[in-house]
């Protein structure tokens, strides 16, 4: 789309897994030209992760790969070989942004550390997304999403039962979080190149992004001042109540009423029981201190009602409670269909498959319907031939040598 917001920004992605691909997808979703570089033969590791239709593994049928790589062009290249690196440099000479998530030592071994990349293109913004970052003692460590998330303090502080293992979200939350931070800072660095005097290295540690903006936000000032810290309780936010997930007749609900009007609304919805009319419970903090008393009483009520009914009645009364929806319920919700968020994408190997639209709507610069993720090496001829002007015989030789 000629009017897309990021039209004209040229991005090269050299990453696999979730963080760098998702960050690059954000650029692609809003109009940037993204070339994804994958290893020949095997490609991005998420091609092997699935989920696959019928659980039958197939390099071109991974749902996660499909989700993370829409709107990109894909090429194969062995960047560990000198000839491959040379071609990568040619791509980077005319690119605005490189998004990568290799470990710092891997990039050094490949001859792709920031000093080398800056030498290729001084205006290049290099966005590196790693579990631990480019500096500090753990920068040489190996890590995955799991390790980054648990290094952030998020799980120990906020998720799990006391005495039992702290929990991740059941998704790649550190990778997604780091990708979001990287997209914002990377785009700012790109837009501000004239002002700051060129490209630069943007160093995102997924663990650090969560340790600061999520965990540190509400805990670090208190610990620095008072020397005490809190940990997960398994029963929701302690500061006030209700602020937890409770079972109901057909599943679970998020019971949440913090501000005075919200609590008042909830009390009405549950029929003004005597216990809830106790005056001291009007104070959100007092309710928090008495959560152990309040939750069983509330649960007696929630167990008699369905989650959607609870959500509707609470919302109507100004109380921000919600149903804990399953993936299916979220996927089938009319709201998300009507907004075009849950949509179908046509893929050459998968056929028509449900997917999720980009995360936000730029109403003044709409984007085209998502193009499917690239097949392995699908755009080699486009990118190497048309963009770099490489001749057919040169391409054939590189193919024979296993470089492409």
């Amino acid at each position, binding site marked *: 789309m000629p009017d897309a917001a990021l039209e004209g920004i040229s991005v090269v992605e050299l990453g696999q897994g979730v963080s760098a691909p998702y960050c690059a997808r*954000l650029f692609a979703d809003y109009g940037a030209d993204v070339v994804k570089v994958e290893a020949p033969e095997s490609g991005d590791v998420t091609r092997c992760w699935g989920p696959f239709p019928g659980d039958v593994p197939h390099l071109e049928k991974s749902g*996660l790969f*499909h989700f993370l790589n829409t709107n990109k062009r894909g090429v194969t290249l062995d960047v560990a070989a000198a000839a491959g690196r040379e071609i990568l440099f040619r791509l980077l000479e005319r690119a605005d942004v490189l998004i990568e998530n290799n470990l710092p030592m891997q990039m050094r071994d490949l001859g792709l550390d920031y000093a080398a990349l800056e030498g290729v293109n001084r205006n290049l913004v290099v966005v590196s997304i790693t579990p*631990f970052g480019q*500096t500090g003692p*753990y920068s040489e460590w190996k890590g995955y999403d*799991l*390790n980054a998330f*648990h290094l952030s303090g998020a799980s120990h*502080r*906020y*998720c799990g*039962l006391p005495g039992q293992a*702290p*929990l991740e*979200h*059941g*998704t790649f939350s550190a990778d997604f979080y780091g990708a*979001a*931070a*990287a*997209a914002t800072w990377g*785009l700012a*660095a790109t*837009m501000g190149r004239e*002002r700051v005097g*060129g490209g*630069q*290295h943007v*160093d995102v540690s997924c663990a*650090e*992004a969560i*340790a*600061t903006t*999520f965990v*540190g*936000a509400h805990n*670090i*000032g*208190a610990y620095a001042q008072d020397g005490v810290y809190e940990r997960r309780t398994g029963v929701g936010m302690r500061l006030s109540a209700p602020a937890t997930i409770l079972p109901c007749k057909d599943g*679970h609900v*998020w019971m*949440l009423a913090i501000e005075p009007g919200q609590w008042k609304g909830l009390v009405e919805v549950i029929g003004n029981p005597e216990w809830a009319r106790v005056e001291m419970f009007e104070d959100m*903090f007092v309710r928090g201190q008495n959560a152990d008393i309040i939750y069983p009483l509330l649960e007696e009520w929630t167990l008699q009602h369905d989650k959607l009914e609870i959500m509707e009645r609470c*919302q109507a009364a100004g109380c921000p409670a*919600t*149903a*804990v*929806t399953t*993936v299916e319920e*979220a*996927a089938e919700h009319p709201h998300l269909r*009507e907004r075009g968020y849950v949509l179908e994408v046509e893929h050459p190997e998968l056929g028509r498959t*449900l*997917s*999720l639209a980009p*995360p*936000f*709507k*730029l109403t003044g610069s709409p984007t085209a319907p998502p193009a499917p993720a690239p097949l392995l090496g699908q755009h080699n001829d486009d990118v190497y031939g048309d963009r770099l002007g490489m001749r057919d015989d040169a391409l054939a030789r590189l193919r024979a040598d296993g470089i492409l």
Partner: protein
Amino acid sequence: MENARPLEGIRVANFGWVWAGPVLGQTLAFLGAEVYKIESRARIDMMRTLPPFDGGVRDPNRSLSNHACWASNGSVSLDLKKPEAVELALELVATCDVVAENFVPGVMEGFGLGYAKLCEVKPDIVMFSMPTAGLTGPLRDIRSYGLSLTGTTGLDSFVGYVDGPPIPMEQAFADPFNGLLGGFAVLAALRHRDRTGRGQHVDYSQQEAVMQLVGPAFMDYAMNGRSATPMGNRHPLAAAAPHGVFPCAGDDRWISIAVAEEGEWQGLVRAMDDPEWARAAEFVGLEQRVRNIGSLHERLAAWTLGFDDRALAERLQGEGVAAAPVMNVADLLEDPHYRARGTFIEVRHPLGFKETIYGAYVKTSRFEADVRPGPAIGQDNEHVFKELLGVSDARYRRLVDEKVIY
């Protein structure tokens, strides 16, 4: 580093409140934008009431949480229930590039600050709206905090222990995530404005943005009709085993270990001194390890139990295994890695006390983020109203007396 920052020259009026709005403003401010929170003593932002307080003194200008979350935002105070306050807000908007807000749809219109009105005073304004479920659709009027928001995305339905009920994330992960990603939306709209001369109204549904994290599970539903259930710390797509958190010596100490590749498994086996159980057929090859992950995790937990978490992480890393300590809040401040990166910093608040907040949560090589302490209510009133908007001393005093500026 004395370099200019990338967003210098961009001015933002931030009507956002509680948490997602602040992190958005903070992000743009770290990057060099001039950001003013529009708030009022007439309705104190809940974040300012959260304990603990500096020195234990309960005061809306002393909430430590607020100062971290709002750091680098400025503050002007206007009671928007008063017409003259709305006029002043519009005068400020006329000098701005961006207006951000995270109310329920319709609240800004109710103030007389809807998108159409903003365009009258600043035709190319970028208005960034971040309600729970977007500006359109049947759920548009839904209210949530970040805590209950995730319930509507499917995400909460698979957080918990295997075969157990959903376990709540006890703080709103959605809020700062949306603050960070919202920054990307604002910048994209600004780039579009720079190239076309046209502003726009960004429709940012917090629900949809957070539901991106459900993507992996969503695709399994799309392809196989399955809805994920609580999976503990297992790999979301069962592509690694072991993949979990295991107990270590000490009070509530744990280590995370993730093994995806065969070489990593061999490294783990070496680190364990090649125990016989690890050679059993049920643990040979990733497929078998994934199938028997329950018993694999039990055996591994029995081994990790006696070790110091950090020492064990070092040892496993030495064998090429992805392992790291599970940190508690105290560790964040004291850990050598975060110290080396300057992750948390001490600043002096405008009211005189020292406090610890987080610094630039992304490191950049060509500029230094503009990290300033959280604002006192109305700390930028004189600068904004007198210098930017040219309000006379006499009128300013009257506006303060009449609690328009309040």
